[in-house]
């Protein structure tokens, strides 16, 4: 997946995505981090075309998603999206949440859809809660179910927008374990996250994003030992202090 010179502004003075060019290849895991309000979420949403960019292009494999007339529903069916606040379908059980798109978007027959949905729930270890409604699950279970929903269609890439930041600290661990499992299987992922030990462990590349632009890109070690930009340096120091306090 790729973005070329992507722009998105909410108001003239609030530019969330400023000429961002970015590329992620099959099997890679990249992690975006940076101050809140810097436009990371907007960038992720532009990639999935959930927010329409003002300028620039987004490519998924060789399909240009920003070209007028392209079938965006079809493209989105190839992209998994995990939301910060999860946003499960509250009227459906865990199983139905995962099964719905398999049945109604991919048009799989009932038995196959169910089998695949159960498989996805198994992968994130919420299978035993398959017949519970989201409101009956803990935040961590809900987010793992959200990941199962995104993953069940076998998307080309999964975009995760701060998957742990809305959770209580004691619940982030189980979600991170799930992501670690996905990483082992070679899932292509772009993750917005501030879980630094986790980032260091799984990310092929880290991206420091600030004021709507990519400030610095590099392997995790670079950020932990020797960040090149002053802004990234300051941010890392603050983050590490905060992690230690916790």
């Amino acid at each position, binding site marked *: 997946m790729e973005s070329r010179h992507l722009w998105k502004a909410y108001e003239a003075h609030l530019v969330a995505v400023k000429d961002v060019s970015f590329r992620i290849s099959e099997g890679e895991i990249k992690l975006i981090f940076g101050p809140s309000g810097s436009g990371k979420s907007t960038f992720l949403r532009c990639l999935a075309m959930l927010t329409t960019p003002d300028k620039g292009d987004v490519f998924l494999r060789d399909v240009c998603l920003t070209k007028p007339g392209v079938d965006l*529903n079809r493209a*989105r069916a190839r992209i998994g999206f995990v*939301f910060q606040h999860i*946003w499960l*379908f509250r*009227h459906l059980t865990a199983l139905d949440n995962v099964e*719905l798109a398999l049945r109604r978007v991919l048009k799989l027959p009932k038995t196959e859809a169910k089998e695949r949905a159960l498989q996805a729930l198994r992968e994130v270890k919420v299978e035993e809660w398959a017949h519970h409604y989201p409101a009956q699950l803990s935040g961590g279970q809900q987010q793992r179910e959200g990941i199962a929903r*995104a993953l069940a269609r076998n998307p080309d890439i999964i975009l995760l927008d701060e998957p742990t930041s809305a959770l209580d600290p004691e619940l982030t661990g189980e979600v991170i374990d799930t992501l670690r499992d996905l990483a082992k299987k070679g899932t292509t992922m772009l993750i917005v996250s501030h879980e630094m030990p986790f980032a260091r462990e799984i990310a092929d590349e880290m991206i420091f994003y600030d004021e709507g632009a990519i400030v610095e890109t590099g392997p995790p070690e670079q950020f932990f030992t020797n960040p090149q930009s002053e802004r990234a340096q300051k941010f890392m120091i603050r983050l590490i202090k905060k992690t230690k306090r916790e």
Partner: protein
Amino acid sequence: MLGGVSTTLAISLLSLLLGLAIGLPLAFIRAYQRSSSFLVEGFEKIFRGIPEIVLMLLFYWGIGLYFPFPFKSAFFTATFVLGLRSAANQSQIFRGAIRGIGEEQMVAARSLGFSKLRSVVHVMAPQVFIFATPGLGSEYALLVKDSAYAFVIGVLEIMYNTNVIRKATMDPVTPYLVAAFLYILLTFPIATWLDTWGSRKKKKLGL
């Protein structure tokens, strides 16, 4: 008189269903199709603004003159008019529910590859319906009461029969008291049931 009960119940329930079938799509048009929402707004203004009794007489005597089928059926006309009036009300009830459910559910559905229409059908509409059920209870109660207007175009419902009995017995008190009691009996259980079912379901799903 009891023969009128089933007619009153039929008018009320059928017009509630007609109102649902029209009102729910209207609410979504108004929420998501900005370009045609003025039509919905116009429809709502007309059917909420004109007294039911005027509409029933107009459709039965006036429009029925040119379209004897189906408007010469008093039962049909009464149900039709109340159904459209209810659609205007329900459209507003559901619009509130759409706001209550929030944009997030829509975004989540779109992220999976659902079209706008399919997101509405599979994700939004079921939740909006549950969210709005307590409100539908009061809408049903309103319909039971307003079905009494059907008396003026000669539908054989509770009021019509009450009037016949009053004339025959010359008793101006008892028939009306019985009618009042029957209306309460028809409204209360179903309205309460809708309210509790909806509230319970909402709580369970965290809506």
